[in-house]
């Protein structure tokens, strides 16, 4: 007796629609993640090649003669490049904290940036009650079946204006910090990966017996020429 699997799996119409939506949702999430992967890979590759700009003068002049010397100089250059980039972000961070402290002095308490009722930047966002998210049982698993209940709708609060500005400023600082650390990481990876290639030579295809480009006297000297056995005379063949 052959069992038809379609008999075993009985899906209601809503479950079928749910499965289709779930499938497309997974595809979209994977696609967006793929775009992120591609973007980060390209960004890091471009930033890693920045070592070429930093070390070009020293390498082209011929003063770099060993792997150790190259690594020491390139790590130093990379560190100083990170310092040059990050010093601006660091000053921005200090300014951010200074503004935050000043606003808190005026408010007479530490400003709560995540307060969604009056003074935080989350007053402009939706607030969901994630703890009471509706769930349903699907093939024995408890999964989310609907949007969570809405606790708060976005509204503009004059008291939260410093929070809005600080939030935008903070996001810019975070993006700069992440980009600069990723650049530093990419340069370090580039040095580790590519520095050895500069001082090693691939000898897999190198033929010691190939003297075609050598001078004539060296070719006639017999140096490095493989021994060739004299051909034995072939026995005469009839016809």
């Amino acid at each position, binding site marked *: 007796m052959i069992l038809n699997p379609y008999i075993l799996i009985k899906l209601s119409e809503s479950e079928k629609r749910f499965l289709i939506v779930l499938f497309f949702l997974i*595809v979209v*999430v*994977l*696609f*967006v*993640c*793929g*775009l*992120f*992967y*591609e973007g980060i890979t390209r960004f890091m590759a471009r930033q890693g090649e920045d070592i070429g700009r930093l070390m070009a*003068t*020293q390498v*082209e*002049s*011929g*003063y770099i003669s060993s792997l150790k010397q190259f690594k020491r*100089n390139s790590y130093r250059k990379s*560190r*100083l490049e*990170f*310092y*040059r980039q*990050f*010093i601006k972000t*660091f000053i921005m961070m200090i300014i951010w904290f200074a503004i935050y402290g000043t606003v808190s002095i005026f408010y007479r308490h530490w400003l709560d940036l995540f307060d969604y009722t009056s003074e935080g930047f989350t007053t402009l966002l939706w607030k969901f009650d994630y703890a009471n998210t509706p769930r349903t049982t699907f093939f024995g698993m408890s999964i989310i079946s609907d949007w969570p209940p809405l606790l708060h709708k976005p509204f503009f609060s004059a008291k939260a204006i410093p929070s809005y500005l600080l939030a935008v400023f903070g996001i810019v600082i975070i993006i700069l*910090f*992440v980009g*600069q*650390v*990723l650049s*530093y*990481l990419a340069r*370090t990876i580039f040095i580790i990966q590519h520095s050895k290639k500069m001082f090693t030579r691939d000898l897999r295809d190198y033929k010691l017996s190939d003297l075609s480009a050598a001078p004539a006297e060296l070719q006639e000297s017999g140096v490095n020429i493989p021994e060739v056995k004299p051909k034995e005379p072939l026995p005469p063949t009839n016809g």
Partner: protein
Amino acid sequence: MKGLFKRLGQGILFILALPFGIAIFILFSIYAIITFFYTFFSAIPAFFKGENVFGPTELDIAASTRLAEQKLAAQQPPPPPVVQPSTTINLFTVQQPGTEQVPPPQVTYTQSDGVTYRRVTEQEVAALPEETIIDNSEEQK
């Protein structure tokens, strides 16, 4: 379609590698901040000594100088070729009309300084006045 599957594969890879990536990023961020403060605090005593930590090192200056010299040497025109002193010999024959005997070829010598000497015949020597002829045989005696 192939590109779409490749992108979805990259997405799966991204999701799988994300926790490790975040961990590496956080650790490296700590390292980067430590190196930042190390550079910052090492620059303070150097500043009071009159040194510049962020300026070019001696190696940078030497490398730049060498590259500039190489560039300058490449821009200069090559030296003119050395001209060796040479002698040009022109041989040509002048056919005299009405004579059966072929005259000897007229030979001229042109030195590198531009002076041209011509080989003379016996008749031309005989036609010269005696005062102009210097006999070396008498001096040798």
